[in-house]
């Protein structure tokens, strides 16, 4: 990512989910994240895109998903917005509760929270905004010594 911020407007389709994941993988790699962190970022973005396309916009062809990547001094900030009716955060069950372990859905937000440093969800009547933040870790002291 040569620019500090890039954004995309995408259709509400399965292709958008794959595309969002690919973009996240490419940008996180370019920013120098390690393999595990790249996987975490790409998976979090994929889950966010699934929520936007499937649960937010409901695959509606007239509704778009916007995806933005922004690099600040310390953070990679990813924003995903849909044009749905907004989600009720109080209705999202804890997927680790024994009674929910065998449910076949409801793990997306949990995975995002597991993989990212910050996850903010702002639902509104005109759509949901999801903000994912991953800290950009600098080189370790050992790495600096090794480069000298």
């Amino acid at each position, binding site marked *: 990512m040569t620019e500090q911020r890039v954004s995309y407007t995408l259709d509400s389709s399965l292709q958008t989910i794959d595309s969002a994941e690919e973009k996240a993988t490419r940008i996180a790699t370019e920013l120098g994240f390690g393999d595990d962190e790249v996987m975490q970022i790409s998976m979090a973005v994929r*889950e966010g895109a699934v929520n936007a396309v499937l649960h937010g916009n409901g695959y509606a062809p007239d509704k778009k998903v916007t995806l933005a990547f922004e690099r600040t001094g310390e953070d990679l900030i990813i924003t995903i917005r849909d044009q749905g009716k907004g989600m009720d955060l109080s209705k999202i069950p804890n997927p680790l509760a024994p009674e929910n372990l065998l449910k076949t859905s409801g793990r997306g937000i949990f995975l995002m929270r597991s993989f990212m440093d910050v996850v903010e969800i702002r639902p509104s009547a005109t759509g949901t905004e999801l903000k994912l933040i991953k800290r950009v870790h600098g080189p370790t002291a050992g790495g600096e010594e090794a480069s000298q």
Partner: protein
Amino acid sequence: MSMKVGNRQVDGVTIVDCSGRITLGEGSVLLRDTVRELLGKGNKKIVLNLAEVNYIDSSGIGELVSAFTTTKNQGGELKLLNLTKKVNDLLQITKLYTVFDVKDDEAAAVKAFK
């Protein structure tokens, strides 16, 4: 890389060799259809060999859970074999590792069926 499956029989147990990605869309649907078809034909001892599965998302995890419960509800048994590190880590953080019967040796997996 999309998902591919191939089935083989070992001592009355169906080994389903999966490769690629189990994600929302084709991958999840293929896994669901494969398990339902096996159960429909009376194959109720199933091992999902995930050695070549390099990526799985929450929909794929949900599909593994669905395959497990569907098989169990029909009087069968489903085990997981040869998890990659990524899949293993996901099952650990979602606490599903304790739900599934996970094996890392095919002969042991086949032998473990009652």
